């Protein structure tokens, strides 16, 4: 369990002391930690600065609690929306002055209203959600030995992981780990929540490596970035298969093979 990650895209504000419309901001909060957000000022400090005149100096705060996080809305007039980008329209509305609304999503986009056409939003990831082991034989689980790295098998990152592991699951090939374009081609049209871009696939792979599996340090020190990416994919696939996080049964999550584009070998069996 490592808390939550708050990610503010470029051009929405910045960290304390940053330039207006500054760079991307990423905050990592451990259990019990709090991050305030808003327009901020010298008297009202905030950890996450949202640069829009319609947003209060202290607009709200995020508090990490157990394996999820809570949102407090300091606005007296505006509701905030918390959307689940993978949830096909799932969202929560946090009314004005609500304290500590628990947010159940692993991926959230917090949307604050502005006077303009474009709302200000930032993302919060909560990678610590725990899932029961698929092969646990029922019964109380509180004291049982469980997998300490659990994956949401309905999430897009899991589909990406299965696609990465597919060649080795199907024919034990040790060499073939698909490239990003191959993954986009394999599962791109299969998602209900919209299309999958190459960039999204890369972020899912980073999320798996950094937050879900917490792959050890070695790759981080290698120079060439392209090389590191490939190493990271290999490593994800190796670990997911070695520790049974992805199994043959998960191949059913992928769309059926069409037998086209270099997959004739499997189709011919």
């Amino acid at each position, binding site marked *: 369990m490592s808390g939550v990650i708050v990610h503010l895209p470029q051009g929405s504000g910045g960290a304390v002391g940053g330039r207006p419309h500054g760079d991307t901001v990423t905050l990592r909060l451990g259990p019990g930690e709090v991050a305030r957000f808003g327009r901020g000022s010298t008297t009202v400090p905030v950890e996450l600065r949202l640069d829009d005149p319609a947003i209060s100096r202290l607009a709200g705060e995020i508090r990490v609690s*157990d394996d999820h996080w809570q949102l407090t809305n300091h606005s007296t007039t505006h509701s905030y929306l918390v959307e689940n980008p993978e949830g096909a329209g799932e969202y929560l509305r946090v009314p004005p002055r609500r304290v500590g609304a628990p947010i159940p999503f692993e991926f959230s986009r917090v949307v604050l209203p502005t006077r303009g056409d474009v709302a200000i939003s930032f993302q919060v990831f909560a990678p610590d959600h725990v899932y029961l082991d*698929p092969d646990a*034989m029922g019964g109380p689980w509180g004291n049982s030995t469980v997998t300490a790295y659990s994956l949401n098998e309905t999430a897009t990152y899991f589909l990406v992981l299965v696609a990465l592991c597919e060649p080795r699951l199907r024919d034990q090939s040790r060499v073939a780990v698909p490239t990003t374009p191959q993954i986009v081609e394999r599962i791109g049209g299969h998602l209900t929540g919209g299309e999958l871009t190459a960039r999204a696939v890369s972020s899912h792979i980073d999320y798996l490596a950094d937050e879900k599996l917490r792959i050890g340090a070695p790759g981080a020190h290698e120079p060439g970035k392209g090389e590191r990416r490939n190493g990271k994919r290999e490593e994800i696939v190796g*670990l997911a298969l070695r520790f049974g996080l992805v*199994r043959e049964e*998960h191949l059913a999550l992928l769309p059926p093979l069409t037998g086209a584009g270099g997959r004739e070998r499997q189709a011919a069996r």
Partner: protein
Amino acid sequence: MRPPHGPSDTTDGDRADPLPPGHRVGDWVVTRLIGSGGWSTVYAARPAGRQPDRTGGHPDRTGGTAAPPGHADVALKIMPTAGLAPRQARRIVESARREVELGSRAGHTRLIGLLESFVLTAPGHPSLEGANVLVMERAAGSLRDLIDAGVPEDDRGGLIAGICEGLAHLHRSGWVHADLKPENVLLGRDRSVKLSDFGLATELTGTHGYVPPLGTLDYFPPERWRAPLGELGVRVRPTADIWALGIVIHEVFASGASPFPGATPMARGAAVQEYGQGRAPLRMDHAVPPFWRALAADCLAPTHEARARHTAESLLARIAAHREAPGSRAGRRGPRARTAVLATALCGIAGAALCSDAVRAASATAPAGTVQVYNAERDCRGQSVRDPRCSLGLAIDPVRPYTAENVVATRVWHGDILTADCQVADGETIIDEEDRRSTHWFRVHLPPGSEPPTAWLPAVRAKDGTALPECF
């Protein structure tokens, strides 16, 4: 996104079906189910060819040389692999391999003994074909059972010392247990502590070992929550066991409560991390006596570095010094008294539900004499309510150690009048809470339909009865 699905949904029922008593596994016959975990099911078993123990008469009793019955009773840990994908099956095999390797190379009186292991061929039972079977010593219960029932105050120090001895041996031999918790601390028939479940135990290479990404959330040290997963698994060090020991010490002295607040393992895990990152202090229950609180606090030092000074050896030395110190409660009673108290607490788990009103009803048709039950705890006398904590046990066999294995389901309370037909003078020595000791036992009748039909009440738990004839 489609809902998750897979073969695991269809194989569940098949794998969960318990084996019936009498089922033969290798050279062993299943007698009952003990419990099932994530990947295994544990059964009590006896060697094939030996009949279940009979109770009542004891032809060998006077000779005193017969091997104690139940000596060869074992626990079978069965880990099915049928229906699993090859990679899952490999995990089971790996877990069995760790247990076998540790059992054969680092055996110790504080570790549960592994008698044999084999892979099952069961043509008639497809769900068991290829299952890994570990044959182990059978214990009377686990520390979790005892914590749930209430650990007698005088037993606590000895239990912790026993766990510490087991850990000291493991660490000295270069192993890390990696899943220490009360469920995996078993209590032997002779009240000894035996660590078990070495499915995650790992041999150190240098200062680290590697384990699969598995564990029990409530016993993870702070650093484990952010531990990276490497090619060999997750890195663990002996200090992870020391942390878990700190949690167990607190649980033993604080009625099973973790030192970390929270209603769920995740909430407590979050509290562990807050503490580990220095944002929350350690708040232990005041029920934990000062010596043990200091010891647990050292085990629960927030970082590996701070914990490393407190090895199992050094903790053991501190416990030994404390127990020998004058005025320490541990020295007050003989070991035998602790056996009796421990047995009473353990058997209270299963037996408390049965009310001894039925015992009294049976006494109406008394064929021989009667004995009246006497409870040495003053608080338990003069009570009208049948408080389970005041219940007393009856032995199945007066010449076997008075442990949970050797106690019938029926409980009795102070003042109950039981039908008794005879007595023995040379049973196990029982010492009560007032230091009265006796080797006399009375054979009493249980309610009609009980199995066995009779049981044995220690003379220290009875008034009258001295006029009963000798049993033959």
